[in-house]
């Protein structure tokens, strides 16, 4: 009874509508803001935001819960009306267009599969609404089942499948429509670690194969770093930083980003020496932190350094040089097989102690590293002292 008699006009922003020139962004948010009203209180979920997501891009919205990332995505999908601003899909204004008329599809966190339908009918749902002929529906659903490695499971009800399989059905159900963008709302959140890691690689592969724009909402920085072409880190309803994973990781634009992405080691001090583009401030007994910054003597600077950039020495490294050298005491050793994570307490004097995390690779030939309570020296190059904007 689902059939070709139903036909719907092409959704707004559909590929057929206008031949997409490569420079038209798949999704554009222009000054989009969303305020929720609960009783007399107004809560700003998303502050005026501008975003452009290119065609074929794997774009992540990353942030803690309540940062506005899901609301942002739901405004793209059409489930929330922006309080102000314009949402564009391939250049077309869709701000007031209903979700069923938008050429984007969503993969829900809870999957939201239709429990009363078979896997086949679930995946065919969108195609049938669009009035795709029966033969083509069968062919495209078959292709999708193959793509997500569920061939032969078409007649199963989703309730009888594992979480990972349901997740793939949800993905197929959205992808089969060949939308101009696929929106994924923490799609791997309900899976266990192993499966999640496998699916990350799988998702990236699928995205490369189909060439569709992916917008991926997650609070898991590892996920975002692994898969994304670009990441927007959100906090309190605003985008704090936008850039490729490496840039986000190595040059965080704010203290929040530095803290949220990876393990950040923060050190601050008053510049005591500034020459040749390097500023130095003391840390610990006889220790010095050097960073490439134009800060003048007397200024306070805060730097962050990634745990894997730090070298660990049991004796004071030689020479003056330009590298940062900080002494401390090992307070924790976590052996992880391929790597060892150390926590080192540094006596930074002024503000009391601070703890730095150091990751070392357990490559062949290395003997046992320092133990708890040992005195050690930490060393890293000036390029890894990333100065946080004041």
């Amino acid at each position, binding site marked *: 009874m689902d059939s070709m008699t139903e036909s*719907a006009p092409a*959704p707004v922003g559909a590929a057929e509508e206008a031949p997409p020139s490569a420079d038209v962004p798949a999704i554009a948010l222009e000054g989009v803001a969303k305020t929720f009203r609960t009783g007399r209180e107004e809560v700003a979920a998303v502050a005026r935001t501008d975003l452009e997501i290119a065609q074929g891009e794997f774009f992540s919205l990353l942030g803690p819960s309540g940062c506005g990332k899901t609301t942002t995505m739901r405004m793209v*999908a*059409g*489930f929330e009306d922006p309080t102000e601003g314009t949402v564009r899909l391939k250049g077309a204004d869709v701000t007031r267009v*209903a*979700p*069923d*008329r938008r050429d*984007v*599809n*969503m993969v*829900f*966190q*809870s999957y*939201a*599969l*239709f*429990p*009363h339908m078979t896997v086949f009918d679930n995946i065919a*749902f*969108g195609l049938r*609404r*669009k009035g795709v002929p029966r033969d083509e529906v069968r062919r495209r659903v078959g292709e999708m089942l193959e793509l997500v490695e569920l061939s032969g499971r078409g007649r199963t*009800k989703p*309730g009888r499948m594992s979480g990972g399989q349901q997740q793939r059905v949800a993905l197929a*159900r*959205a992808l089969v*429509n060949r939308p101009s963008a696929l929106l994924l709302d923490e799609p791997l959140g309900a899976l266990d670690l192993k499966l999640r890691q496998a699916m990350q690689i799988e998702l990236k592969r699928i995205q490369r194969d189909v060439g569709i724009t992916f917008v991926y909402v997650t609070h898991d920085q590892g996920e975002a770093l692994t898969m994304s072409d670009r990441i927007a880190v959100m906090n309190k309803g605003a985008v704090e930083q936008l850039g490729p994973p490496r840039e986000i990781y190595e040059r965080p634009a704010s203290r929040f980003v530095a803290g949220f992405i990876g393990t950040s080691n923060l050190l601050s001090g008053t510049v005591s020496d500034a020459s040749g583009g390097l500023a130095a401030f003391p840390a610990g007994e006889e220790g010095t932190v050097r960073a490439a910054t134009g800060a003048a003597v007397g200024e306070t600077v805060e730097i962050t350094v990634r745990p894997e950039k730090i070298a660990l020495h049991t004796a004071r490294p030689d020479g003056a040089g330009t590298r940062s050298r900080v002494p401390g005491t090992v307070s924790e050793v976590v052996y992880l097989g391929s790597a060892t994570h150390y926590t080192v307490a540094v006596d930074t004097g002024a503000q009391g102690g601070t703890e730095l995390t150091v990751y070392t690779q357990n490559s062949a030939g290395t003997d046992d590293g320092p133990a708890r309570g040992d005195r050690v020296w930490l060393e890293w190059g000036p390029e890894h002292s990333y100065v946080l904007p004041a």
Partner: protein
Amino acid sequence: MTDERRPRLTARAAPYLLVAPAWLWLAVFFVVPIATVLSMSLMSGNLYDGYSLTWEFGNYAAAVGAYWEQIARSLVYGACATVLCILIGYPCAYWIAFRGGAYKNAYLLLLLLPMFVSFVLRTISWKALLADQGIILGTLKGIGLLPEDAYVLNSAPAVVFGLAYNFLPFMVLPVYAVLERMDHRVVEAARDLYAGPVRAFTRVVLPMSLPGVFAGVIMTFIPTSADYVNATVLGGAHNTMVGKVIENQYLVNNAYPMAASITFVLMAVLLVGIFGYARALGTDRVMEASAR
């Protein structure tokens, strides 16, 4: 040795001991009365000489022959009232579940509030409200919106209305229960996949809520078909339902075997109807959807 076994025996017996009260209850209040009525339906005799079990299967033929009209009418009234309950109750349940917000429980309470007043009393109040010169019809006649000879009471619609009114909560509650625990993201998923609001409802919400409708139908159709208060109070002499017949046979004519046979005929018809209905709807689908 016996000491070792004792705890295991107790452990094995525990489930049976725990269900024993339920079994006892069913035996005393279900099996015994049913068996009594069943044997009564096969008896012959009268109140003064006493009844004896003579396997009088003719009672059934006589019951159907004499009262098929009332039985059929009861089923029709019950069905009409049930359909009315779906038409009013489903939107009501839908609205509370999807739009009720923080006041869901308050709305449910409002729905159930009339149930705190006696069933018979409520039906009698409707008799007063719907009287030919009562507050509703009298007023409408007074301002000339209705002709002087218009009436509602003592008609089939009055009975169906009364039944639907009295049993509405039994439809709303099971439908509400299903809609309430439905993942609303499923509706969003349908909208996301190009279904408009109407299609999202007919393709997703409605099929997923069928188990609730199924339960609601059983909970309204059975009692409305067997009800005799509404027919008696609102229906008058020409709209008698089978419940009234059974009452008369028992209490007025003291024809116990006849009353018992009619009871069983009604029960059989309802059971066949329910099983046929469950079958047509697809029991496994109902079970599967309700298991979620």
